[in-house]
């Protein structure tokens, strides 16, 4: 289970952390609170090549659909079967059991260019009205 500080973040509120040669991706606690009541996640296909910043999944609440962007380039090597079965896990545990997909052959330099936890916290503050 990653800590917030071990993750890097996108402005569109996805988190990512490196687990050996793979990267794990999910959405932040802030994002799940804003989305509320997640009822469906359309996952990317395993084996799909994605580039950083590409919309690869959709998270749907009762009222709206939200595109999920990949923080990193790489190949989708797994999607979370638990979330496919019960999407509300993303609301309950966005950082651990609620991960969405894993990427292999992700580029480390892309990872370090993402916002760290502190920068992300600052970014969220600027988003509040």
């Amino acid at each position, binding site marked *: 289970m990653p800590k917030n500080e071990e993750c890097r973040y996108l402005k569109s509120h996805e988190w990512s952390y490196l687990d050996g040669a793979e990267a794990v991706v999910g959405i932040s606690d802030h994002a799940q609170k804003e989305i*509320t009541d997640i009822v*469906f996640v*359309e996952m990317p296909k395993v084996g799909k090549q994605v580039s950083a910043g590409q919309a690869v999944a959709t998270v749907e609440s*009762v009222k709206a*659909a939200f595109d999920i962007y990949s923080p990193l380039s790489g190949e989708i090597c797994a999607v979370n079967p638990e979330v496919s079965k019960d999407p509300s896990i993303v609301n309950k545990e966005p950082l651990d059991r609620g991960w969405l997909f894993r990427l292999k052959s992700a580029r480390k330099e892309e990872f370090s260019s993402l916002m760290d936890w502190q920068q992300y916290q600052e970014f969220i503050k600027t988003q509040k009205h």
Partner: protein
Amino acid sequence: MQTEAISLLKKTPLNCAQKDLGAKMVDFHGWELPLYFESIIKEHEAVRTRCGVFDVSHMGRLKIEGPSALELLERTNANSVGSLKPGESLYSHVLNSSGGIIDDLIVSCLSPNHYYAVVNASRLESDKAWIIKNNTHGASVIDESAQTAMLAVQGPKAEDVLELLEFKEAKTLPRFGAVRTKILNRDALITRTGYTGEDGFEIIVSAQEARAIWLGLISNGVAPCGLASRDTLRLEAGLLLYGQDMNEEISSLEAGCAWLVKFEKDFIGKDAFLKQKQEGLKRRLYGVKLSDQGVPRPGNEVFLGDKKIGALTSATFSPTLKTGIGFAYLPADVKTGDDIFVLVHGRKITAKAGPLQFYKGKIHA
């Protein structure tokens, strides 16, 4: 910029009370109303299993009175207002001369020559213009919307809660009954009606008294609910929304509301309906239930094989059925149980065409 835009929106007397509870507000036809408080699904479940309250003060409220009130209402309504005894209400449609729906509404008879109509917020001005245009015998038409507020208390425990708030007819008022009474010792007009598929009441009080009733309900454990759960609840119950499932181009017959059209009396739109009946309907409203995962949205296209046959007018994830549901106007020869497809995010999801009602609650007789 956003703050300025919001400030132009109309507010109900409960606007502050709802913001105090953390309501997420949205612009609904020019009104600032709560979309939800904490969770749409929790609000939905509260109404299905216990009790929730919706601020529906934005809806239009018209008092129609005088010796010619009944004649005016009979002529402008497809349903038989003349069949109402004092203390009874009915659901009806107001039609244009081509049989298109100007609005759907609830009409109550309070006493002979005294009627009360609750109409859609977005249609209030059109309704008034149409009723006044047809008011050839001088009935009094008074718009009470601004000086009153309206609360919908819905769910199986609504009766018990309102009894706690000293509404003495809570146990005895029949479904679609209407009574001038008191709640928390304040004057109110209460009907046993709603838009959720559950038992429940709609309470009209003066604008100044709304906050006291709201706080009384909340302090008795009633869940505050917003527009989002109102939409999921009414869709499951097979209830139509004006502007999405009905408009002036659609007839009551096409909208699956033939039951409310009373051909034995005269009303504006009747000739168009008779013609439509004789020629047969080309399209009608169906319930659409997805057979596979996915969340349908209004506007999603509906296919039979490769042929596009319509689009969803309303659609959502059903919290009770845990599947996607919606309504669509489809060719009238589509059969219940036919396999159709709904195009969601470019993906064709199998679905079944069927009746409008997806959920049946325990509605008080």
